[in-house]
């Protein structure tokens, strides 16, 4: 019952006029960002975070969460109309959304996507409300060793479940951590890694510099290369009859909605996974379980509903570990977590007792944001189609202006703008060679927290690493650590398993 009271408070908080205006504004920006090919929630949140410094944290998180949410809805628009995913989270939406548009049923696809997103979003917010308070209560008993073990597990998930090249993934994690050690050492106070004695390095590298560099500049370079500034759009007729017919077609997608919502939520909780694999997985599973699985890929509404349900559900799911454990579940939540530190909050379970307005305001706003985004999405489809006609050659410089100003604003130093540019170019080149970039962003955010937790644990144990592995002393930390080790060595067994399997088949 207590939860219901908190939730109602949270909903009222998010309905205060200032928060509500920011929420609607955030939904609109999110829809826009999601709809633009190449830009997704992570880019929107990274570029916009510097402008949230002057508003209260609750309003800031409501605004950014709305952007995150809106982008999940918006991604479907360009997947359907252009055949280019608006964001990586909407890749699976192209599989059936594009064929529907080619058949002249674009409105069915867009309505299915919007309703699917709404269902996924709502189910996951309810799950979130149920799971968050008990998880936070458990997490309250966590000390430095447990926190450090959790962070190691977050890094290990990238290696075990990320599916990218293992040395390149570990490199990405380590470079993020190494970059986070630049600046003054928090225990001895000594300056570390001050290259060429440039004073700008003394204050360390703000995670935003890396995030905006990679997700702003780097992503724009990537998209410029992919599209070369040109895109081709499908025709669309919008009338109420079409919308009505589209709703009728949704009756057959209930199974897809269930799979997408529940699978999405639980995949979203995992640190490495996030919305992209969630949407791909639920598309695959829905296809396998469907009676007419052969029609998938030729344009069935269920093929649009499943991934759209899942990506919204996963985006909410990824906020669960961010709020309760202080461990982000996706690159976007990693940036949100960094934002929380910049706003002066301490991420983790204490937020639930110390900052209930912030936590419940965010949870309440998710319910409201879901509703507004559904309405805005369907009502503004013609407007978003106009947005998609904006040539990339005009959009790109505007994003660059936002990146440069956003990179400068937090520390007011040009040094950071140079670094951001450098990270952007390096990130673009590394991404072309299949180095995953998300682990670096996650680890530069978690780096200082992980170092603090590690050093506190070692002070507790008089310098012995055994504190992380002793089941009788610290059972939770030890179990988490052993899971992390399993995740780390898992990729090594992949080739062995395949070889064994092949032998068995040939035998």
């Amino acid at each position, binding site marked *: 019952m207590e939860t219901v009271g908190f939730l109602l408070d949270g909903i009222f908080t998010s309905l205060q006029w200032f928060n509500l205006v920011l929420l609607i504004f955030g939904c609109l920006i999110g829809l826009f960002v999601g709809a633009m090919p190449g830009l997704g929630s992570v880019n929107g949140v990274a570029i916009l975070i510097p402008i949230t410094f002057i508003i209260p944290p609750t309003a800031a998180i409501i605004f950014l969460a709305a952007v995150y949410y809106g982008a999940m809805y918006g991604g479907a628009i360009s997947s359907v109309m252009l055949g280019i995913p608006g964001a990586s989270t909407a890749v699976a939406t192209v599989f059936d959304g594009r064929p529907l548009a080619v058949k002249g049923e674009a409105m069915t696809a867009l309505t299915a996507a919007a309703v699917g997103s709404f269902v996924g979003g709502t189910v996951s917010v309810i799950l979130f409300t149920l799971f968050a308070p008990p998880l936070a209560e458990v997490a309250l008993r966590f000390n430095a060793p447990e926190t450090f073990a959790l962070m190691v597990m977050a890094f290990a998930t990238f290696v075990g479940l990320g599916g990218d*090249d293992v*040395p390149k993934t570990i490199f990405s994690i380590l470079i993020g951590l190494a970059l986070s050690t630049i600046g003054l050492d928090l225990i001895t106070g*000594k300056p570390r890694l001050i290259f060429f004695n440039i004073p700008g390095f003394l204050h360390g590298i703000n995670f935003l510099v890396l995030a905006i560099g990679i997700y702003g500049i780097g992503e724009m370079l990537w998209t410029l290369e992919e599209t070369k500034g040109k895109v081709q759009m499908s025709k669309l007729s919008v009338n109420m009859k079409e919308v009505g017919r589209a709703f009728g077609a949704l009756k057959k997608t209930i199974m897809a909605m269930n799979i997408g919502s529940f699978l999405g939520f639980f995949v979203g909780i995992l640190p490495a996974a996030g919305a992209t694999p969630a949407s791909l997985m639920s598309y695959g599973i829905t296809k396998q379980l469907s009676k007419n699985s052969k029609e998938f890929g030729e344009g069935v509404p269920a093929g649009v509903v499943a991934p759209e349900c899942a990506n919204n559900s996963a985006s909410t799911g990824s906020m669960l570990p961010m709020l309760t454990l202080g461990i982000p579940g996706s690159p976007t939540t990693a940036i949100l977590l960094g934002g929380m530190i910049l706003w002066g909050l301490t991420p983790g379970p204490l937020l639930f007792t110390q900052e209930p307005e912030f936590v419940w305001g965010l949870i309440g706003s998710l319910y409201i944001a879901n509703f507004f985004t559904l309405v805005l999405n369907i009502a503004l489809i013609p407007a978003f189609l106009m947005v998609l006609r904006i040539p990339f050659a005009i959009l790109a410089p505007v994003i660059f202006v936002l990146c440069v100003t956003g990179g400068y604003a937090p520390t007011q130093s040009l040094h950071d*703008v140079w670094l951001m540019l450098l990270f952007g170019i390096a990130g*673009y080149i590394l991404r072309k060679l299949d180095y995953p970039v998300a682990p670096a962003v996650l680890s530069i955010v978690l780096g200082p927290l992980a170092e603090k937790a590690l050093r506190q644990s070692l002070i507790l144990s008089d*310098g012995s690493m055994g504190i992380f592995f002793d089941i009788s002393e610290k059972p939770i930390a030890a179990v988490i650590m052993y899971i992390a080790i399993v995740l780390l060595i898992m990729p090594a067994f992949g080739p062995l398993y395949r070889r064994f399997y092949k032998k068995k088949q040939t035998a």
Partner: protein
Amino acid sequence: MSITNKITVKRAEIAVAVILALCSIALMIKSAENRITWNAEENMGAGFLPFYLSLGMLICTILTIIKFVLKRSPQSKDDNPFIDAVAFKFIAVTIISLVVLVLAIGYLGIYFSLIFFLAFYLRYFSEKSIAFITIFAITTPILTFLFFEWMLKIPLPQGISEPLFYPVYDFMYGGFSFAVKMIFIILTVVLPTALVFLTTRFIK
């Protein structure tokens, strides 16, 4: 054979791996300026974490190089160009103009640099008219100014152009009423737009 064809994915992969390995070694050397030891008696040295993190990076790059030599990674067998010629033009011009933009910000200040950056970028890549480009290049910095300096109260770098902004600041923080300030904001956007519009009409 153009330069973009010479840089294949294969060559880029090994070149990047070697550069990253060298960077890791440089990081290790730099970390060693602080104490990199750690044992039960002494606390962890300030250089300990960065040193071993960069050692880990070095090991990862060596593994990447070994995979390359053994032809185990997809990039090690890929003879396609790393980037095609058309895209290369886009990327190279973008990167160079961004570098020039940041250089110019330090000297000219952000607002004037942005005018030149936007004008150049749109002229080079889009097929928009001169009037559109001029209006766009002028109104974007004005909106940036209003947003950052007025709404957020975050000063952006102004370089040598700083004295030009003193009268604006006097106005912003002077005792004018809200209505007067709003009219000023609207005029700062509308006036240049109208001016450019009329000038281009007149020239035609």
